[in-house]
């Protein structure tokens, strides 16, 4: 009876694991101070290009693609769930604050492709956008291996 219960419970988690994920922590450095508006544009384009690449390569639903930028002058978060509506971006940058250096936490979750493919699409898209904005970057952490598989649900 308990085994049946565990099996049913596991079925729910298996369904959720059909979502492909990629997460990373990125240090970003701009050559000059960027205004909040320019920074909003950077995050919006980053999420859009990553999502577009995933959808063009087999993803059939955006789960949630989001980024959180932490800088000395404030924080900015961006969230995309509908490619046609672009990102919702909020920040607490005060008037006159700029961004030149910070860390972006990125989390990409889509349905229909697996983790490896999400990563394979996310990294080149990220590179393109940072180059487009003239931003240097270093990937500090890549969580791909820890995000993968349903094995963590199996004792």
């Amino acid at each position, binding site marked *: 009876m308990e085994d*049946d*219960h565990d*099996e*049913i*419970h596991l*079925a*729910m*988690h298996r*369904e*959720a694991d*059909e*979502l492909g*994920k990629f*997460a*990373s*922590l990125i240090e970003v450095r701009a050559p000059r101070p960027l205004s909040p508006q320019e920074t909003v544009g950077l995050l919006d384009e980053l999420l859009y290009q990553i999502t577009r690449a995933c959808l063009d390569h087999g993803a*059939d*639903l*955006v*789960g*949630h693609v*989001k*980024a*959180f930028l*932490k800088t000395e002058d404030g*924080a900015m*978060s961006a*969230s995309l*769930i*509908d490619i046609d*509506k672009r990102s919702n971006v909020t920040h*607490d940058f005060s008037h006159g604050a700029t961004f030149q250096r910070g860390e972006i*936490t*990125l*989390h990409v*979750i889509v*349905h*229909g492709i697996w983790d490896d493919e999400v990563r394979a699409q996310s990294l080149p898209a990220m590179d393109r956008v940072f180059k487009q904005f003239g931003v240097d970057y270093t990937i500090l*952490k890549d*969580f791909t291996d*820890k*995000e993968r598989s349903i094995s*963590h*649900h199996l004792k």
Partner: protein
Amino acid sequence: MKISQIAGFLGSGKTTLLIEVAKELVGMGKKVAIVVNDVGEINVDFKIVESYGLRAKELSGGCICCEIAGNFANTLALLWTNFKPDIVIVEPSGVAIPWGLKRAAEYSEAEVPVTIEHAPVITLVDSTRIDALLGTVRRLVVTQVREADYCLINKIDASDEGRIKRSEELIRSVNPKCEIMHVSTHQRKGVKEVADIIANRTSDRYDEAMERALLEQEYGSG
């Protein structure tokens, strides 16, 4: 200590609503803590909640309702020891099962002298994406709706009559007993009402027989 869970599929607006409701509850004089769970090793939502100056704890690396249930209970016990919150708002990952989360929360009673009560289970339904969600992740959405005491049809400001109606029809067909509210966090529509529900109403404690019945209703008997 009251546990409030705000469930819903990815992108349904859980974090945004949670922040606004927490601010409302603090304004009502409540001591509020927040626990944000993500199945991955990275937790963007926690960073966002923390940036608003709210007292938050993150739980990563697993699902709060099963594999890291013990960590969740420890976290609640520590929160009680160090902060004594009136209300802990929990944002589970899109994977957690509400009844499982109730059970995990009650484990903390074995660690510290506290009695856990539960606020009504709230599930958000993103009306703007209802058709896409039902087409691809129907079972996840249905399970979260089935176990809710309140279903909040969210983002009504960005939706249309047809999608809102289809969201209502889904909820009514899956969980006819739950209460339905129309919400727009961006317009603060429904935020105070949700805070009042969390502060003043309760939900049943964990009942294994009931959880089994709900799961088998959805998935069959194995």
